[in-house]
């Protein structure tokens, strides 16, 4: 560049510009000049061309648009002399990117330089390709670059660049490197002595291995060997030693590559790797020098994640934890942050929780760190490490911290505290204490979910009710309390205030007085809750207290003309109801227990956390929750409610209370019933309004009917946030009888199925089709196989690209006869919305049947040889869907039980035969006889026989299912005997049939 006067004058002109405007004028002038020169007919001398191209680069670097002259820059690449070539390569790689068409012109020249003999040119070309090489380059240059990389005649300088260049080409086009051929060479490359080449090659390896680790398994021991060499500091030249650490970059890369291999089988390799890791763990300490610290910690943290990845011995893991514990107590914030972060990651590994717990006090101290990012990490870690044993301490610590934490963290903090309290509560009263305290301290940050959850627990646990009520009463004594607290206390006292009646200061009128004091200060959504509470207080006052009644009526009167329709409706209804006496008692009776379901809090937290990768929530999900809360509830926390929920509630109470509790069981599938119930519209309108409408005293008062109606909790399927197209159950039923069709469809995805059956084996293909223009992410499929089937589902890609279809074969093998059905637990994300569905796989009993036509000579001896139970079973089936005989015959044929015509002399009877295949039984002939009654088509006698008693029973049940009126969901209803009251009839079967959760439970 020396001696280019024009360029230096231009640069000094620019530097002398007083302001931006002058600079712009100068640049525009120069650009005009360059344009004129490039356009001139006269051929530019190489010197001039070089000068102008340098100027262009300088202008480009100043931030101005340079959208011409690329041709000149590219043409300089093919210049014979080094200075011109240099300019050409540099400017091309700065001004162009891989998508420019101009680059195509250069490919040939670049290739010539690469395969040429001039090292300087080779380096220039490799650098260019390594920076802006695209697919085209990848296709035409990859073999040459590979050759260069493995050639022994090249200097390390060139090979280093070649490795990085190849990395770029591989990234642009993974087909550029053929794994089969390249794996051996890659392994050879790792034997390289020169650390520079080795470092670049390891970068390449990391990328290759991340794509396909199996092919490169031969590289694994080599990586370990490299690590050994570096750890022992053997043969490491001075220039690759950074602050006494032998090539930290190579160490990190080698360890990164190792993490892509699932495990290390070879014991000697494993042993030597652990030695190296041990050495790194032992040898790292915090020192004064920042650069040395950075380098050694980079190595250390990589080693830590490798240790975690390898599931090393417990001893080593606890050593890691101890090391991290040391970091947490260091003053330097960066190290402390890394320590906390890695400890959170450590939680994923089993067996180290105990050793992490030792550092609890130190972590709690970090919660008070001046640096917010460290505080967040500490909070995450505390949240992750919490379990039954330390929940009390941690939650109390969090509560204490809540009052000093800054606002941006409070919401997260309160949510986490609430979740921990819920999950790990040693006893329920403690849980109530914690949440009330939480509301008291950080009311603004406590979402509705949190207090809904408390109410839910209190309602479901009778022992807790008096305690909760007295606690709520205590909080009301405070002069200033948060509105959420008013809501909780009002609700709890309304429900359970009467349990306190004996205690001083807790009579109904006193409760009313203290609650009514709060009324003027609360917002509109709270007033309805207060009104309900008043009504309940009034109802619980036995004998009636005329004075209290007068006061409460006055309140109702006042709100009868309220502008808010919810408040108005309640005031009017309660006022009328309270005049009714007995009805009043019924309507306002205690709320029924809430159905158990997954805590909406945890769901919410999962949504919040989804973005952060080392979310402690995932750890949470793996841990067992405390038993305290579970014991108090009849159902397990996780999983869907059992199908017998309906009878268990309705069976234990008298018909009237059952009518009241009706909306509850109907609402079972909805995860948010609680919020629905407690939302202003419906805090307890469900029981209230049902009765109201039955007794009908209010319609005359002019309350709009539909408002009352809307207060009933909607009975809707809500596990999926999307609307399912078509009826899943019907689709399944159809697929039971045919081999291909649609299994599931919603606005985003369609799942089709195609099946082939051969004997006891089957092959299904799931077609997952994305119907949208945006990709579906986090696609997950999980097969829940029943005991009698062996299922193998090939992995489904995590993301389904827009408008694409993904196929996923599913191998099925039948082991023994059973009617149970496999379930596909399927979920995906659309945008931020998580959709999940549980779908039954149509691998039913009949799929393993093979039709067979028997003559009378074959049939009857066999029929007779099956003498009776358990090999031959007979049952009279009632409630059959009325079908004409030919249709019934078609139905049987459709599930591969062949009707053999003419065998039975009675024309009203059908005789059928089929062969059943399974692994344990082999092929078994099954015979069946159906005797129908022409007078009453709803009943028939079914006789089934086969050589295997289980098969006989299962087949009989299967045929029965197919014949009964409502084939789907009927099984869930089977245990429900007739005394279901008529009101309960319409919603239950349909609702249950539509609810995959219930179905699943029923089927499993």
């Amino acid at each position, binding site marked *: 560049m020396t001696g280019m006067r024009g360029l230096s004058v231009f640069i000094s002109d620019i530097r002398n510009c*007083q*302001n*931006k405007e002058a600079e712009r004028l100068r640049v525009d002038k120069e650009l005009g000049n360059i*344009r004129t020169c490039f356009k001139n007919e006269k051929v530019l001398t190489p010197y001039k061309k070089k000068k102008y191209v340098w100027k262009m680069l300088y202008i480009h670097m100043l931030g101005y648009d340079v959208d*011409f002259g690329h041709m000149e820059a590219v043409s300089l690449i093919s210049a014979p002399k080094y200075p011109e070539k240099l300019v050409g390569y540099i400017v091309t790689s700065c001004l162009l990117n891989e998508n420019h068409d101009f680059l195509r012109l250069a490919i040939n020249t670049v290739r010539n330089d690469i395969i040429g003999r001039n090292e300087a040119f080779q380096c220039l070309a490799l650098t260019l390709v390594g920076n802006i090489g695209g697919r085209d380059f990848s296709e035409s240059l990859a073999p040459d670059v590979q050759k260069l990389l493995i050639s022994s005649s090249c200097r390390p300088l060139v090979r280093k660049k070649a490795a990085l260049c190849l990395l770029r080409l591989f990234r642009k086009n993974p087909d550029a490197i053929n794994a089969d051929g390249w794996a051996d060479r890659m392994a050879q490359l790792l034997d390289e002595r020169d650390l520079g080449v080795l470092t670049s090659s390891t970068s390449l390896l990391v990328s290759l291995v991340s794509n396909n680790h199996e092919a490169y398994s031969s590289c694994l021991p080599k990586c370990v060997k490299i690590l050994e060499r570096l750890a022992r500091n053997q043969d490491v030249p001075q220039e690759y030693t950074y602050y006494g650490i032998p090539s930290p970059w190579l160490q990190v890369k080698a360890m990164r590559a190792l993490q892509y291999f699932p495990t290390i089988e070879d014991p000697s390799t494993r042993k030597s790797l652990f030695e190296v890791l041990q050495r790194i763990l032992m040898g790292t300490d915090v020192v004064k020098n920042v650069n040395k610290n950075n380098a050694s910690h980079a190595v250390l943290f990589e080693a830590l994640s490798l240790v975690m990845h390898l599931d090393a011995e417990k001893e080593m893991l606890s050593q890691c934890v101890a090391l991290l514990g040391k970091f947490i107590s260091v003053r330097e914030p960066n190290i402390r942050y890394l320590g906390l972060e890695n400890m959170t990651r450590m939680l994923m590994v089993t067996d180290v929780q105990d050793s992490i717990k030792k550092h609890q006090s130190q972590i709690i101290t970090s919660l008070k760190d001046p640096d917010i990012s460290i505080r967040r990490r500490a909070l995450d870690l505390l949240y992750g490490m919490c379990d039954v044993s330390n929940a009390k301490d941690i939650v109390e610590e969090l509560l204490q911290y809540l009052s000093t934490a800054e606002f941006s963290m409070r919401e997260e903090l309160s949510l986490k505290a609430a979740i921990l309290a819920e999950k790990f509560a040693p006893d329920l009263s403690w849980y109530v204490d914690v949440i009330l305290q939480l509301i008291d301290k950080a009311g603004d940050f406590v979402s509705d979910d949190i207090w809904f959850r408390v109410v839910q627990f209190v309602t479901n646990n009778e022992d807790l009710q008096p305690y909760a009520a007295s606690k709520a009463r205590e909080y009301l004594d405070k002069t200033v309390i948060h509105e959420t607290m008013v809501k909780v206390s009002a609700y709890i006292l309304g429900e359970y205030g009467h349990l306190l009646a004996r205690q001083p200061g807790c009579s109904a009128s006193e409760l009313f007085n203290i609650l009514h004091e709060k009324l003027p200060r609360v917002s509109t959504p709270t007033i309805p809750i207060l009104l309900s509470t008043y009504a309940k207080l009034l109802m619980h006052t036995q004998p009636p207290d005329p004075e209290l009644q007068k006061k409460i009526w006055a309140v109702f009167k006042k709100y009868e003309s309220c502008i808010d329709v919810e408040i108005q409706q309640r005031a009017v209804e309660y006022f009328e109801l309270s005049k009714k006496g007995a009805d009043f008692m019924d309507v306002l009776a205690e709320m029924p227990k809430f159905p158990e379901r997954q805590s909406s809090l945890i769901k919410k937290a999962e949504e919040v956390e989804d973005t952060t990768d080392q979310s402690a929530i995932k750890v949470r999900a793996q841990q067992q929750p405390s038993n305290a809360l579970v014991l108090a509830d009849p159902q397990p926390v996780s999983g869907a409610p059992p199908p017998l929920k309906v009878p268990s509630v309705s069976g234990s109470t008298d018909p009237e209370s059952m009518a009241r509790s009706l909306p509850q069981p109907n609402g079972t599938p909805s995860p948010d019933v609680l919020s629905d119930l407690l939302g202003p519209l419906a805090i307890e309108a469900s029981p209230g309004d049902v009765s109201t409408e039955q007794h009908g005293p209010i319609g005359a008062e002019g309350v709009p009917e539909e408002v009352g109606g809307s207060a009933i909790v909607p009975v809707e399927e809500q596990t999926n946030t999307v609307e399912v197209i078509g009826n899943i159950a019907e689709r399944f039923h159809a697929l039971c009888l045919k081999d291909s069709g649609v299994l599931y469809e919603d606005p985003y995805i369609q799942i089709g199925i195609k099946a082939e059956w051969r004997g006891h084996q089957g092959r299904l293909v799931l077609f997952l089709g994305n119907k949208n223009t945006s990709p579906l992410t986090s696609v997950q499929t999980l097969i829940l196989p029943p005991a009698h089937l062996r299922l193998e589902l090939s992995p489904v890609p995590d993301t389904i690209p827009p408008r694409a279809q993904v196929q996923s074969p599913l191998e099925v093998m039948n082991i023994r006869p059973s009617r149970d059905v496999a379930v596909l637990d399927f979920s995906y994300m659309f945008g931020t919305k998580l959709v999940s569905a549980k779908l039954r796989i149509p691998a039913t009993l009949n799929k393993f049947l093979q039709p067979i036509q028997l003559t009378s000579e074959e049939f009857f001896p066999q029929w007779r040889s099956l003498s009776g139970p358990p090999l031959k079973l007979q049952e009279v089936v009632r409630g059959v869907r009325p079908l004409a005989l030919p249709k019934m015959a078609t139905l049987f044929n459709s599930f591969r039980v062949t009707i053999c015509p003419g065998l039975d002399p009675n024309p009203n009877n059908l005789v059928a035969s089929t062969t059943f295949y399974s692994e344990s039984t082999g092929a078994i002939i099954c015979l069946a006889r159906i005797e129908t009654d022409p007078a009453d088509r709803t009943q028939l006698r079914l006789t089934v026989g086969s050589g295997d008693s289980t098969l006989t029973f299962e087949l009989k049940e299967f045929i029965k299912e197919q014949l009964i009126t409502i084939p789907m969901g009927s099984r869930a209803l089977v245990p429900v005997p007739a005394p279901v009251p008529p009101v309960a009839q319409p919603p239950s079967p349909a609702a249950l049939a539509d609810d995959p959760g219930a179905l699943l439970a029923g089927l499993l």
Partner: protein
Amino acid sequence: MPVAASAIYFLNLRGDVLINRTYRDDVGGNMVDAFRTHIMQTKELGNCPVRQIGGCSFVYMRISNVYIVIVVSSNANVACGFKFVVEAVALFKSYFGGAFDEDAIRNNFVLIYELLDEIMDFGYPQNLSPEILKLYITQEGVRSPFSSKPKDKPVPNATLQVTGAVGWRREGLSYKKNEVFLDIVESVNLLMSSKGNVLRCDVTGKVLMKCFLSGMPDLKLGLNDKIGLEKESEMKSRPAKSGKTIELDDVTFHQCVNLTRFNSEKTVSFVPPDGEFELMKYRITEGVNLPFRVLPTIKELGRTRMEVNVKVKSVFGAKMFALGVVVKIPVPKQTAKTNFQVTTGRAKYNPSIDCLVWKIRKFPGQTESTLSAEIELISTMGEKKSWTRPPIQMEFQVPMFTASGLRVRFLKVWEKSGYNTVEWVRYITKAGSYEIRC
């Protein structure tokens, strides 16, 4: 009256503070840094004259190579602020003798501080009239050797004068030769479509006056404007003369004009201040005589060639001529080579403004002149967005021509002593924003 400024800063183009004065303490002293970093060093400089940063409003204006920035934190009257700046600059100019730039400021620090103290008080503008201020801020500015010579002035009683009936004129002035110079300066704003249709056209005019008159003269000015003529004919009860009458819009007068008399008699009568002042301003939107017609044809021949043909016709009287005519014809940014043929004047390509600049020193009336150019463009990598074709701009000055047709009918001077006066009248028309789409 609303606040106009909390502080005022004078910055050079690099953003260094030359001089500043804080009137109210509601803005911090470092706010000017915000101006420097957020306005001056961004591309938005000059886009919007009022910007708000950090609760403060910055009202700024560039005069030659100086930025004058007013910083206000309250809800200020921005128009008042701008007016203040304009008047202050006029004041400084009259003190420094014509020039106002960075050097003039550096040479007159003390004087400027003194003036800044005087012309604004606690953010409220005060008297900015040079005639009056010069009475008591007597410190002479450093004059450049080329400006006119200082005059000897007595030091009269300033207070008396400011509070008197004729605040703008001292008594006891006397000149050997009593002279009045009257200039009518008009600037034409035009936007014309490529087909020659006038899309927008107006003229803003000023009547400038320079008086060297003794005593307390009473002047009366008659123009050929519509209202004045009608009133006159009404008063004299004779029909209005035929001939062109001009309808003036938005007339504003100097404070010396007697508005009561204007309202009743529609005549402009006044006792003039001594020296130079702007007597009135007006605007005209109808009946404008355009001095030039421009007929452009621009052809894009493919992606790399263009042909430009511009014909300019002067449509004022054949005896008159325009001076300093400049036609700026915009061309695309990727212009590489240009080839001109012009009948008169000289043309060249200026890459820093992306224009062909065609200069004609003297352009006689009723003639026409053409430029034809061939332009070669360089091919670019950028996306193929079409060129936006900005309008052609024109600059010119036509002496003794008014685009509005306004003429001075009479200028009468009465003084007790009854001396004779010499009146000089000049007309000039300039281009304002004179744009022709192409």
